């Protein structure tokens, strides 16, 4: 990609015997939301910390705007913003004082940050809490304040490490509205998330597993890579359903979902009648059975299982 704002190449980090991040490479363009997904311990946070230059990689490069972050950290820091799972706020300072402090560290002129703070706080519905101490805010409000602090210097790159973990759904929606606004402004964003419905909102996704990048594509592209098909079987007894289906020929995996189960098969047309027959024989009650488009969660499980088998 020629207009890449963030370029990552051969990034590796070792903790003792464990290779936490292994030869990671990807690039993020302006106005793109790039998602990092993977199970716990996949190396998401380590990657984020290296991108933010709070951790030194053992190998590899991170280039922001054509400037090597490791060689010239002071030059790139001005354009990058990092928001960890828990943004570091001063509980004994007010909302305004926190924003002001971070604005001052980035040497944002006073009239500029005031205007910026106004907009950011309005967007996250926080204006009426400006004089409240940060320690007295709820978890969701703290994260929104963190985001305001992280954005007060108008960064070109925003790094978000599981920013919505433990945040209520309403605040999460506001949070994403702000991110979409930033995308329109051309900010490049890297976001790691444990919520797969959030992953679906990203422009592109990187699937991490044990420090390695398994797949990297748009959500639609990733779904297209899914081999076989996904059957959704609605049933009031999903556990018995799973036991009956698992191990049948052509069944790659079974994932319990709200209404029953998603069954990953190699060929929908051939396997549908076989499964129906097996369920009838086992006496499992079903109300509906059809082919559906896979969700990111299906995909995630299917791809990781395949990756597991390959390695």
């Amino acid at each position, binding site marked *: 990609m020629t207009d890449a704002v963030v370029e990552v190449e051969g990034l590796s980090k070792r903790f003792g015997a464990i290779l936490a991040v292994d030869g990671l490479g990807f690039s993020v363009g302006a106005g793109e939301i790039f998602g990092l997904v993977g199970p716990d311990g996949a190396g998401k946070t380590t990657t984020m910390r290296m991108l933010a230059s*709070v951790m030194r990689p053992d190998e590899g490069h991170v280039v922001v705007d054509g400037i090597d972050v490791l060689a010239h950290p002071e030059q790139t820091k001005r354009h990058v913003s990092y928001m960890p799972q828990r943004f570091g706020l001063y509980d004994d300072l007010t909302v305004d004082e926190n924003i002001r402090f971070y604005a001052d560290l980035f040497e944002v002129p006073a009239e500029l940050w005031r205007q910026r703070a106004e907009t950011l706080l309005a967007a996250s519905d926080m204006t009426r809490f400006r004089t409240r101490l940060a320690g007295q805010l709820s978890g969701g409000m703290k994260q929104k304040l963190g985001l305001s602090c992280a954005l007060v210097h108008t960064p070109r790159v925003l790094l978000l490490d599981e920013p919505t973990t433990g945040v209520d759904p309403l605040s999460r929606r506001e949070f994403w509205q702000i991110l979409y606004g930033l995308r329109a402004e051309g900010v490049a964003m890297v976001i790691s998330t444990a919520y797969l419905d959030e992953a679906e909102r990203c422009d592109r996704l990187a699937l991490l597993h044990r420090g390695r990048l398994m797949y990297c594509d748009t959500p639609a592209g990733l779904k297209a890579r899914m081999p076989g098909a996904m059957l959704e079987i609605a049933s009031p007894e999903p556990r018995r359903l799973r036991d009956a289906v698992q191990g049948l020929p052509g069944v790659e995996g079974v994932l319990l979902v709200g209404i029953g189960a998603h069954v990953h098969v190699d060929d929908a047309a051939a396997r549908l009648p076989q499964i129906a027959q097996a369920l009838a024989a086992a006496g499992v009650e079903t109300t509906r059975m059809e082919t559906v488009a896979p969700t990111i969660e299906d995909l995630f499980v299917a791809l990781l299982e395949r990756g597991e088998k390959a390695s």
Partner: protein
Amino acid sequence: MFGRILQLLIKELLQFRRDRSARFRLLIPPVIQMLVFGYAATFEVFDVSTAILDQDRTQESRALTAAFVHSSRFRVTLSAATRQQLRDAVERSDAQVGLVIPPGFAELLRKGQTSPVQAVVDGTNSNTALIALGYVGQIAGTFGQDYAQDLARRTGRARGRPLVSVSLEERYWYNPNLNSRWFFVPGVIGSVLLITIVNLSAFAIVREREVGTLEQIMVTPIRPVEFLIGKTLPFFLIGLVEVAITTTVGMLWFQVPFRGSFLVLLAGTSLFLLCVLALGLLISTLCATQQQAFATNFFVLNPMFILSGFSFPIASMPEFLQWLTYLDPLRYFLVIIRATFLKGVGMEILWHQMLALAAIAFGLLAVAVLRFRKSLD
């Protein structure tokens, strides 16, 4: 650069203003320590409870007893009738000193001979025992001398040895009345400064690490050195204010004379504060939580206090520990603050101590800054 340091300084003072416990830690302990040491800590020994067993029962033995009764150093609590009574009194701690005047005490004196008196001292508190014994010797000596003089005069020098004696004219310089308060109050100023500033600065930095603001600040363009300056400068200023307050209390409330120059004290305090802040910083790089910092502070500060010469004389320590005291910045600062208070000497005498403090400050700061940079990775 200066803008960012200034902002950090403003933020720090703002937080300090809101933090009640920090203000409490700054003001209350120094005042309490000043009062405790100013009033309670004393090496002087008064009113030692004393039991006397007079087996002689003569005019002379009664005169000796009276000398003890009238001394402000001793308080005669028991006139024992038997040795057993005297022994019991010491055992029950009713008496710290037991005095036995044996039969024949007066007879020997009248012949102009040396007459023994037994003193039993409870040695549990060795310091008090030693001092009390000194006073016993003093009173007995004076009594003996007066008696011999009197005897010689009465007998036309036939008895009582001719008096050839060296008379000691004692002059205590700088503290003529040996007032222990004069010794302790300047020391308290130094040790309280050490304890409060190490605590405040170590906690302040560890808290940033614990809450996650340290990492957040490090992704901004601020440089580690700027952060450290902005973070420690407020405590430097707070330290100076604290010395000003405690010095004022010492001079006005406890009436300890200040004979030296405030500028010399300011120079010494500044160098000492650099050491103390570096120490706080160093401790903060070793600790991830404020609780750890609290425990570490305790283990570091206690030996520093004991090795400083605050109350235990360095010259009496084993050689190995004496060498160790050279690494203790409080040792040098106590010399400086006591000398500026009581002796009134200046740089021409104290430059050794100043130089030592500067060297320790430089060493500690270098290690602390290196460790701090490393701890960021």
